[in-house]
Structure formats: structure tokens, C-alpha cells
């Protein structure tokens, strides 16, 4: 029963803490414009251009392609495009690791679905579940191990790697390894995992041995730990792209941005800088000093 409750608590905390992180990042004050091109939403400007290429740009309607932005983000999430182009050897470890995670996410959803509906006997679902589980544990395990080995072997990476970053990779690898040993001991088809999932969901699960207990504790622990540390970059990345690099909304009269700027200008900073020239001028926040 405890392991069943633990699953609900861990999953709940994962969602709540991730949402809290997003909420905190979202609440940070409006920043100055710092966009970077190419910005994929700029319609018809595949060369990396922006609306500023138009004479009297403020008189023309903005041409925005949300589809192009979604496609770019999709490519980044599924394929880690920038890493592929910028650092192929790192990508060879990082992509399997991330793709393995995605597979395990789908695997978990399929297990829940089949455990609750009894559709575990539907052959297509059974095969799909098996495939996701197998790929997930294999790619995730191999990826995290290679990432760890790379960090240890490459002196130039090692000097930037903190104990916490090693710990993250070790915990992840341990979760993949124990999971693979546990769920595939009886073959590739995840049947024991489905049964365990049903028992966990109905709060009637008791780990059959130490391996199962260790694995589940690792998974629950990671679900709570991931959103509180830097592994929560699945949240940060959204803000980094959408609210930072691709945020090129101009402060034009009657625009949504104008309203945001007006609100931000009302916030007077309490903290001030100390250099002589910084005073009596207000600190560089959002308020408009008229000199």
C-alpha cells in the first residue's frame, strides 16, 4: 500500500513542483528586449530576418507563423537540433538519453491505460508497450552511462562538472538499470510491469523483492528531485525560447506589450546601485526616469 501511495505522492509532487517552477519563472519581471535571430515565428523570413526589415515597420501588420515556431520547438524537443548541429559527439549520448526518457513516459502511459482497461492483451498495444519500454530503458540507460563516462573521461568537461551533476547522472542511470533488470526479467513484454502498475494504482502493491523496492524508491525520489533542480530544464527551455530569445514583441501603442510595459514601469525598485554615477539616478529597472 505504501508504494501505491508513494506513486501518487511522487507523481503529484512532480506535477506540482514543475508547475511551481513555471509559475516562478513566469512571475519574474518583464525584461528588456534581447531577442536573437533566427526567430522562427517571423513568417516568410527563413533567412533569419525580422519585421524590422520593412520600411516603416510599425505601420505594417505583423506576419507571424505559430506553426513554424511549434515546428522549431518540436525539432528541438524531439531531436535536440542545436546539439546535433553544434556538438555531434555530445548529441550521440544526449539524444538517446532524452529519447529514452520520452519512450518511458509513453511506456508509463501505456501501462496505466492497459492496466486500467484490461487492454494488455490487445496485441498491438502489447507490442507498442514492449517497444517503448525496451527502447526507453536501453537508450536511457546507455545514454546516461555514456554521459557520465564522458564527463569523467574528458578533462575539459570534468572541470565544470559539479558533484551534483555527477549525482544526477548516477541516480538516473541507477533508475534505468534497476528498471531494466526488474521489468525485463520475464521477457520483453512488460507483463510484470503492467501487473505492478495495476497494483500500484489500486494501492495494493508490495514489492516482491529488494530490487523492486530500490527501483521504485529511485523513481519516486527522482520524480520529486527533478523539478527542484536544474534537471527541470524542460520548464526552463520553454521560457528561454519563448520569453527570451524569441520574444520580439514591440512596445507599440495599444499593443499587449504596451500594457505590460506600463505595468512594469509602475514598479519602483527598492535596491539601488552604489557607484557615484548611479545616484541619484534610479537603478536600471523598468521605471522611466525623465532627465
Amino acid at each position, binding site marked *: 500500500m505504501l508504494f501505491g501511495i508513494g506513486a501518487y505522492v511522487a507523481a503529484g509532487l512532480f506535477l506540482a513542483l514543475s508547475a511551481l517552477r513555471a509559475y516562478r519563472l513566469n512571475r519574474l519581471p518583464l525584461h528588456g528586449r534581447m531577442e536573437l535571430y533566427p526567430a522562427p515565428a517571423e513568417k516568410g523570413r527563413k533567412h533569419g*530576418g525580422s519585421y524590422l526589415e520593412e520600411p516603416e515597420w510599425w505601420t505594417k501588420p505583423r506576419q507571424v507563423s505559430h506553426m513554424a515556431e511549434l515546428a522549431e520547438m518540436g525539432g528541438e524537443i524531439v531531436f535536440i537540433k542545436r546539439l546535433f548541429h*553544434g556538438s555531434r559527439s555530445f548529441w550521440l549520448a544526449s539524444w538517446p538519453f532524452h529519447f529514452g526518457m520520452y519512450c518511458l513516459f509513453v511506456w508509463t502511459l501505456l501501462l496505466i491505460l492497459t492496466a486500467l482497461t484490461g487492454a494488455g492483451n490487445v496485441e498491438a498495444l502489447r507490442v507498442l508497450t514492449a517497444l517503448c519500454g525496451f527502447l526507453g530503458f536501453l537508450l536511457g540507460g546507455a545514454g546516461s552511462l555514456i554521459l557520465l563516462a564522458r564527463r569523467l573521461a574528458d578533462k575539459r568537461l570534468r572541470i*565544470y562538472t559539479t558533484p551534483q551533476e555527477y549525482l544526477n547522472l548516477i541516480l538516473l542511470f541507477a533508475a534505468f538499470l534497476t528498471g531494466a533488470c526488474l521489468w525485463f526479467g520475464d521477457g520483453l513484454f512488460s507483463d510484470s510491469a503492467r501487473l505492478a502498475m495495476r497494483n500500484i494504482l489500486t494501492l495494493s502493491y508490495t514489492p516482491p523483492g529488494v530490487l523492486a523496492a530500490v527501483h521504485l524508491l529511485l523513481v519516486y525520489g527522482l520524480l520529486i528531485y527533478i523539478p527542484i533542480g536544474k534537471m527541470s530544464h524542460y520548464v526552463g527551455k520553454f521560457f528561454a525560447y519563448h520569453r527570451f530569445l524569441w520574444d520580439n514583441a514591440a512596445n507599440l501603442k495599444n499593443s499587449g*506589450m504596451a500594457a505590460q510595459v506600463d505595468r512594469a514601469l509602475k514598479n519602483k525598485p*527598492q535596491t539601488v546601485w552604489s557607484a557615484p554615477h548611479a545616484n541619484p539616478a534610479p537603478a536600471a529597472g523598468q521605471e*522611466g526616469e525623465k532627465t
Partner: protein
Amino acid sequence: MSGIIAPKDLGRRTERLINYDSLPPLPAPYDQWPEPKFAEIKPEWREKYCTSLDGCVAIDTMRPPASDEEKKAFVEKFLQGLGKLFSDANNGVRQPLELSFEYCAKCNTCSEACHVFQASGGQEPHRPIFRAEVLRKLYRSHFSGMGALRRALSASEIDATWETIGRLGELAYRCNLCRRCAQACPLGLDNSLFAKEIRKIFSQEMGLAPTPLHDKGSMLQLKVGSSTGIGKAAFLDMVEFLEDDTGERIGQSIKIPVDKKGADILLYHNAGEFVAWPENPAAYAILFNKAGLDWTLSSEVMTYDSVNYGIWYDDIQAKKIALKQIEAMKALGIRRVVVGECGHAHKAALIVSDRLIRAEERLPVESSLPLLAEMVTKKQIRFDPAKNPFPVTLHDPCNLVRQMGVVKPQRDILQALCPAFREMTPHGVDNYCCGGGSGFAIMNSPNFSSFRNQVSGRMKFAQILNAFTLEMTDQSLPKYVCAPCSNCKGTLREIFEVYKATEQYNLQYGGLVEIMVNAMAELKQPYLEFLQ
């Protein structure tokens, strides 16, 4: 120093942390040339500046503390500023800063993208994440709410000593703030922010900034209206001289309107152009007149110099200048502001100042490049491309291109007017910085120019050489690098001088409007000086 320099080594007691004695080779014909000598440190400089990073000095106002008390006070002041980065004093940057601070995966993809790191021969302190990691460790050591455990887990083993902080200040001025690294980062993080934020701590909290940027830059501009020191009367004299000189040069009289009431356009130049490259504002005047635009220059304080050095090192100065410029422009009675060929002025006027003030309180600002492109594509002026037969390549100023997305207009012009135009590799938004970005172009003494000319400008020089591989050694053939930005032109001028590139190989540089005027069908004489 031997071995790999780790962030914790920044405070190491050694006379010099980095040497530039094995820079990567340049392409032909410079593969046969000995590298020019790096300016040496004079012994007395050690007493006056922090020379122990790489022997070059950027912050010429940073005197090494003489006593232990002074050292302690220096470090404390820095830490005080570090804390303010994450406070409401820094609201305008906090979201991007916190994202970049928190999420780096240490994948080093950004290092491949950084021209300074690559051109330094892969020197560790020039790796984009190096500064960031030092700052993270210092912050976690001194401000982490989770105490010893968090410190242990993040290996915050950096000692906050004078050596560490002094070198960190210098290191903040070894990054061009070009943001090519941010473009490459899979997580969308921006390491240039750390260089800029360190500069801000030094300037806004500690009162330390390079003289050309602060005392002779933003402070002078706030005082007299221009960082060139030119006042209203001198500006009017220069314009008058320019009218006469240009009239003689093109064989027809030319009128440069100043303070024209109710004009549609205020043409907003970097005042340095009038001093260093007067043919640029003159070419603008020729083109704007010919295209029939209703335009004017202004002689009012803060409206004849578009520069804003504050954006490189100090948000307070940047804001003061931007707001003064906006206020002064509103009084002119013009309809819109059009920025001339200066990348950082473009960014300051269109991007940085965009959210500093209510939308109702500002005039619309735009780049001049789209207007210039229309003169060609809409045939507002008659051009003859045969007048520009020589090889031409284009440098993309980072501020204008990667950071504003103004990419195509300049290409439309060059493709139409220069039959031998070719792109550099890479180009457009993927360009490399000229090496003079973020103030380096105007920082020379005591020996900073060596770093700029031979390290930060190295990648651009290599790109230029590669663009002209076939023609490079033909002395009789001019090769033109079009750089539509004052700072980039200043940087190219110095690089070409150090490597004797104009003298030996007829490598030329200049702006966009000059080459447009050179192609004007009605002009009898070439406009470009090297063709005269």
C-alpha cells in the same frame, strides 16, 4: 601556466594566467607571415592595472589594491554587487539571467560557436561557460540559502580574492557580447549575459569601467551631447565642410539639411562617422536627396550622435542616454527616426530602449537599410553595377543582424550593385563578430588593441581572407569589405593596419552607402577613394 585552467584557478597566484603564443594560423597568404608581436606589458603597468589575466588591460581604472584592507573592501564591494544582480535593481534582466544561471548542462556546444575561444587556441578562460561558472560558484558560496550541503554539491571552491575578482573583471572584457554562443545553445541560454553582468557590477557598484566607454564615452555624451566631444557649433561647421568637400568630389553641389522643421525623417548618425569616415554621412545625403526623401540632420544636443556606449557595460548609463535622446528627438517636430550605419546605435535605439518608456512617449525608429534597399529594388535611383566590378564581401554586424534580424536589405543592395559580390562563410545571422563588438573597437590603450586585433578579430580576418582566396595576392585589384557599422569599420581598419592588408594586398573596407553612391549612373568620378 601549464595544464588546463579551471574556474577555481582564476585566483591562482601567478603573474599571468593566459599566453597567446600559439594562436591558430591565419589562411593564405598570412600562413607565410610571422604573427605581429603582441604589445608587451611594461613593468610599471603591474602597479597600475590588473595585468595578470593575459597581459592585456581593458579596465584601465582598476588599480590593484595596495593593502589587505583594500583587497578586502574590493572583494566585498564586488560581492555586494553580485547580490544585486538577482534583486529588483536588475529587473530588466532577471528572467534571462536566472534561466542562464540555473540551467546550463555544461555540454560546451557554445564553445564551438565562440570566435574568441576558437581564435585563442581554445584557452579555457575564454570558453563561454567559464565566466558563468565562476560567477555561479561565487554566488553559491556567498548567497546560497541552503548552506554547506548546497556548497558541497555545487563544488563552490572558488576563493573570492582580489586576484579572482580582478581577473574576472578583465575577463568580462574578453567577450564581444556577440551572442553567437546563445544562438547555438540547445537550452536557449546566453553566456554573454554573464560578461555583461560582471561589467555592470564593476561599473554600477564599484565605479570601475574602461575610460573610453565611461569617462570619455557615456559621461562625455551626457555632458556635451556626443561621445566625440563635438558640440553644436563644431557639428554645424563639420556639416558645412562636408557639403563643400562632397560637392567638389562629385562635381555637383550638395545640400545637407540641418534642423529642418517638420521634416519626415531625422537621419541619426554615429557622430564618429563625421570625424573618421565623413564620406559615409555624405553618401547618405547624396542618396536621400536623390531619392527625394524629406529628411534632416539635427544639431540639437543628444540628437546628432546616435551612440549609446552604456549598452555595453552599464544599464544606468544606457538608460540615461536613451531617455535623453528620446526626449530631445521629440522636441524636433520630425515624424520618424532613421538610424545610419551603426550596429550598436541601431540596437540601442530600436531594441534596448523599446521597453524603457511608455509607447505613447516615443517616436518610431527604424533602420536606414530597408529604405536604402528600396532605392535599388524600386529603382528610385539609377545605378550602374559595372562601376563596382571589383570583388566585394559583406560583414554582418552582430547587433544589426543576429540581434535585430535586419539581414536581407543589405544583400538585396549588394547583389544588385556588385557583380563580384560573394558571401563570407558563415554569414547572415550565423556571422562572426568583427572582434570589436561591445566597445572593443574604441578600446586601445594601454595595450588592449593587441587582443582585439589578433584574438577577437582573428576569426573575422580569416573569413575575409577566405572570401577573397583567389584574388587576395593580386595587388592591382581592390577587394572591398562592406561593413555597415561604425564600430566594425573601426575594427577592420585596425586589423588591416596591423597585418598591412591594405598596403600589401589592396584590401579595402567601407560602408554600404559609399558603394551605392559609387554605382550611381550619373556620377562621373568614382566615389570610393581607393578608385580615384
